[in-house]
């Protein structure tokens, strides 16, 4: 058996380990071992590749690998759980960048006089450069927005969508021209790289705030497709298989996020996300409802909670910003000791990435069997004494059910308004991301507890202990 055969069999084992590893993510009990399995698959693929290439150029490779491994592991250890969305975004961008560089390097290698750029490798190279480039620059923008280095609000300008479409078509057109008519034109190839990077920026920049889960998922999918394209470029099947697994994963998450916001994938892909009527809807809503908000102090709220039969916590991005998850767990513990039934309701798009709230609450040692998905808990609100909304807004706005003029109309929401009492922890009366006034805050059953979420919850813990 030639080494080529052995290497390919080893790649096959790698690919199988990835599939098994992902499969084990179906349950929290097996998930950790699944991740280890995938990591073993990756190590195997890397070792086999090094053997297959006879450790050629091992010194520079070692330098790059050590720098990358150190940078990656140090940041993975240091990152706070609340900063996880931008960390994942950043890693994602580097993966896409690596794929793009593979395609670019292959183009340069084929420039040498004794080699030619065939049509099929040309197509892979252009697609790899385009998708990888978009993933890289798009992820960097997403990182900047989530990290607060640039405004999280949508940045839009006239004809933005048309411009993105033109950039996209221009990249493909120039790519086609290079492949079939001018395969050694380095200048045009540089233009393709530039256009890909520009497209990543211009298609991510108009998307803001609460729509980030869609973007992060989509970029995740792109990074997989970029790796698959790189696999076509270097004719390596383990890249194609892993890339398409990740591409599929990202697409599924993107779709779940879109359903959670009642937006079509096309709506996301063509850059309309986050631009829907910001501001306009808000001012109308404010006029309608002004003056009917009831507020409550921590004292009163704590008594309500302490003597409740059942409480459902509804966390949102505000909890992450205030780092209130540990205080929330403490409050839940106090309530549970008093015999209160405590649950958490998680909306699919709460936070800045899929599953964001689950991770934060897990960090605070909340057992995962107290975390309920929207569909599993929505019927329980009507039998619940108190629903406590912590930093969530649009995902609990009843207007999504009945107000056809609301930008939120049609979005599935948590039925918080069906609870007997509602306590909303909020910094101020500012509108949510969609710029829409929240009907829930004006609901006769709703009490607003104003202040920083973490401070408010800590006060509730003290008062509930004393109650």
């Amino acid at each position, binding site marked *: 058996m030639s080494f080529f055969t052995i290497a390919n069999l080893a790649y096959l084992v790698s690919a199988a380990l990835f599939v098994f590893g992902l499969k084990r993510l179906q349950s929290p009990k097996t998930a950790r071992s699944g991740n280890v399995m995938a990591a073993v698959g990756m190590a195997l693929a890397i070792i086999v590749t090094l053997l297959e290439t006879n450790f050629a150029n091992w010194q520079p490779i070692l330098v790059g690998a050590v720098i*990358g491994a150190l940078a990656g592991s140090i940041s*993975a250890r240091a990152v706070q759980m609340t900063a996880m969305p931008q960390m994942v975004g950043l890693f994602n961008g580097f993966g896409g960048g690596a794929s793009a560089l593979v395609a670019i390097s292959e183009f340069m290698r084929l420039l040498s006089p004794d080699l030619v750029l065939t049509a099929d490798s040309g197509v892979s190279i252009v697609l790899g450069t385009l998708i990888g480039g978009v993933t890289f620059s798009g992820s960097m923008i997403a990182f900047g927005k989530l990290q607060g280095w640039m405004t999280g609000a949508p940045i839009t300008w006239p004809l933005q969508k048309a411009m993105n479409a033109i950039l996209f078509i221009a990249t493909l057109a120039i790519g086609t021209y290079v492949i079939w008519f001018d395969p050694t034109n380095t200048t045009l190839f540089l233009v393709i790289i530039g256009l890909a990077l520009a497209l990543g920026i211009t298609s991510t920049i108009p998307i803001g705030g609460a729509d980030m889960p869609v973007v992060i998922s989509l970029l995740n999918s792109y990074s997989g497709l970029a790796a698959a394209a790189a696999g076509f470029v270097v004719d390596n099947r383990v890249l194609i298989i892993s890339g398409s697994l990740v*591409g599929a994963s990202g697409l599924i998450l993107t779709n779940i996020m879109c359903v959670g916001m009642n937006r079509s994938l096309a709506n996301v892909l063509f850059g309309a996300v986050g631009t829907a009527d910001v501001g306009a809807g808000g001012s109308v809503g404010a006029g309608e409802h002004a003056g009917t908000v009831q507020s409550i102090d921590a004292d009163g709220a704590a008594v309500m909670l302490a003597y409740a039969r059942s409480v459902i916590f509804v966390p949102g991005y505000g909890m992450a910003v205030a780092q209130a998850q540990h205080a929330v767990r403490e409050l839940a513990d106090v309530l549970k000791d008093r015999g209160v039934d405590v649950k958490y309701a998680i909306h699919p798009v709460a936070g800045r990435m899929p*599953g964001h709230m689950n991770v934060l609450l897990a960090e605070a040692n909340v057992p995962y069997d107290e975390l309920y998905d929207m569909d599993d808990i929505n019927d329980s609100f009507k039998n619940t004494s108190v629903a406590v909304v912590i930093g969530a807004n649009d995902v609990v706005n009843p207007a999504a059910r009945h107000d056809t003029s609301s930008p939120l109309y049609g979005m599935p929401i948590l039925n918080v308004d069906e609870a007997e009492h509602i306590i909303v922890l909020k910094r101020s009366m500012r509108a949510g991301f969609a710029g829409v006034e929240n009907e829930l805050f004006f609901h006769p059953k709703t009490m607003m507890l104003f202040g920083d979420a973490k401070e408010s919850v800590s006060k509730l813990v003290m008062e509930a202990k004393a109650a």
Partner: protein
Amino acid sequence: MPESLLNNLYIFILAMFTGFEVITKVPPLLHTPLMSGSNAISGISVVGALVITAAATGDTLILILGVVAVAMGMINVAGGFLVTDRMLEMFKERQQPAGGEEGGE
């Protein structure tokens, strides 16, 4: 269309279907680890980077691009798997056996 490209297309499409089947069943509870874990897998492009860098003979620019690609890929791989492990370590079940209704997951 050359046969190798055709084969690769078959693999690509079938692997996409496999991905859809396997990942559709991952509960929302684990969506973040799923994302960062699959993200780490997409760092497989480091293999492509290794192939390119190893083959870069005599062209310094390709060598440099290759090394940068290796570094980027390794950030993705090492960071992705480690951060996923850190998250998954935190997911714990309720300690004491709980009466009444149980979680859906």
